[in-house]
């Protein structure tokens, strides 16, 4: 015990030994060879951990076994220190310090051995870059095959939809035509028959509409909307208004644009579909009490860094308390007296959400609505 406390209290003392130069017969050459080699080793054992440290700093999260690497850095530094002290001893025989550093180095070295032992099984499972490359190529090929399959299925689906809808529409068209002839044959005097015929006509019209709507819905589900381009918003809006000129004219709607954002990169088909649905809704659900005003505004939200387009109208409005969760659902309608299929907002919402966006609605009954699309 005394030896231990003695050891530590005299740690840096060199009085009990001669400097190595004077201990035994050291020639100049031999001594300096020894000193130089130790210093070279110390320098290398400083540079190596430094490189490891630099690597760790640069690729912090990507290097496996960070803890083992730190242990390596530590034990190499300590090893280097032992060699430095060994060189110093030629002048200052700090043998106690030397023993202590050697001891610490020994401990750390064995900790590293243990850590390596723990880590080797995992290390053996790691894949080399070449192996990973092969795996990536395999997966890519699988994806490409899968993609091809999907494209083919999509096309098949498309053809199926059109065939099915055509085969449904043909007989319905025939019924329509025959009813017209029947009406003409009956003449206007027979009210009962005329009434019955009209009811048949209504039902067939519904069948036709349902077929058209189902076709539209499936088209949306299967359309990837990949025609992404830089869209001039004003131009596209004008296109929509001119393509639906009659509807717009008869509604006497006053439509204004406030475009703080002039262009947007998006699928043109999808964009047209979305804007068309919102504008048509504003026109359909206009209020009989006032002339229709539609304001279309675009803006860039600096907080979310997204483009937003709002369509604001002064129409009938929606009772959001009642309808909010059903608004975008399929075939859900809230007005009997206005024609509609309950499909427009469903499709619009689907397109927007599929592309990672959102629709927000604000509305008051008999005041109007604002539909905001966040792209």
């Amino acid at each position, binding site marked *: 015990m005394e030896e231990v406390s003695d050891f530590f209290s005299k740690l840096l003392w060199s009085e009990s030994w001669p400097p190595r130069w004077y201990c035994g017969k050291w020639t100049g050459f031999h001594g300096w060879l020894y000193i130089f080699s130790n210093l070279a080793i110390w320098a290398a054992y400083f540079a190596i951990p430094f490189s490891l440290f630099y690597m760790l700093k640069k690729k912090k999260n990507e290097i496996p076994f960070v803890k083992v690497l730190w242990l390596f850095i530590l034990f190499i530094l300590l090893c280097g220190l032992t060699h430095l002290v060994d060189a110093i001893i030629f002048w200052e025989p700090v043998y106690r310090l030397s023993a202590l550093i050697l001891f610490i180095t020994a401990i750390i070295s064995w900790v590293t051995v243990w850590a390596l032992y723990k880590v080797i099984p995992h290390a053996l499972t790691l894949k080399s870059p070449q192996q990973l490359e092969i795996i990536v190529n395999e997966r890519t090929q699988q994806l490409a095959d899968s993609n091809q399959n999907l494209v083919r299925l999509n096309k098949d689906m498309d053809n199926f939809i*059109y065939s099915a809808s055509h085969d449904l*529409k*043909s007989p319905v*068209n025939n019924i329509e035509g025959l009813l017209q*002839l029947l009406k003409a044959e009956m003449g206007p005097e027979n009210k009962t028959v005329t009434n019955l015929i009209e009811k048949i006509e209504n039902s067939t019209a519904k069948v036709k509409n349902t077929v058209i709507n189902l076709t539209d819905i499936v088209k949306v589900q299967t359309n990837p909307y990949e025609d992404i381009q830089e869209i001039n918003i004003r131009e596209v809006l004008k296109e929509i208004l001119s393509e639906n000129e009659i509807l717009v004219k008869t509604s006497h709607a006053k439509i204004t644009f406030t475009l703080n954002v002039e262009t947007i990169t998006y699928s043109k088909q999808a964009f047209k579909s979305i804007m068309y649905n919102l504008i048509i809704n504003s026109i359909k659900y206009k209020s009989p009490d006032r002339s229709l005003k539609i304001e279309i505004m675009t803006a860039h939200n600096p907080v979310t860094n997204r483009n937003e387009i709002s369509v604001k109208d002064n129409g009938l409005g929606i009772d959001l308390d009642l309808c909010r969760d059903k608004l975008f659902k399929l075939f859900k309608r809230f007005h009997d007296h206005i024609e509609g299929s309950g499909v427009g907002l469903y499709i619009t919402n689907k397109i927007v959400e599929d592309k990672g966006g959102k629709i927000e609605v604000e509305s008051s009954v008999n005041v109007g609505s604002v539909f905001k699309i966040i792209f």
Partner: protein
Amino acid sequence: MKKFKSVLLVDDDDTSNFISEIIINKSSITDSISTVKNGNEAMKFVSSHCLPEACDEECPQLIFLDLHMPVMDGFDFLSELNRHMPDHTKCFKIYVLSSSSNPHDMDKAKEYNIEGYILKPLDMDKMRRLSLAS
């Protein structure tokens, strides 16, 4: 003098043809209506009734063509027509009369030399517009 010497209906749907015939008769644009069931029969009819140089008495002046028919559909008929009778427009006008509102069909039809694309069912309004356009 009726507007068209004769009209040819190309459609495999009997009911549709029944309706079309009544409407055409009512519109009084012609006295003679012929019907064939598909593009193949239409080709034979047209080749035999419309000689390449002159448009015969019996050559139809107006053809209503359905698109989806068995044996040979409307598009194939139009291709064949272009190949064997490239100046057929001298003899007759073709209107596609179809249930299909598939934009793909409409675009494809426009690539051929057709006078117009009418959606079924045929009615007096459409006939009126047709006879005004001709």
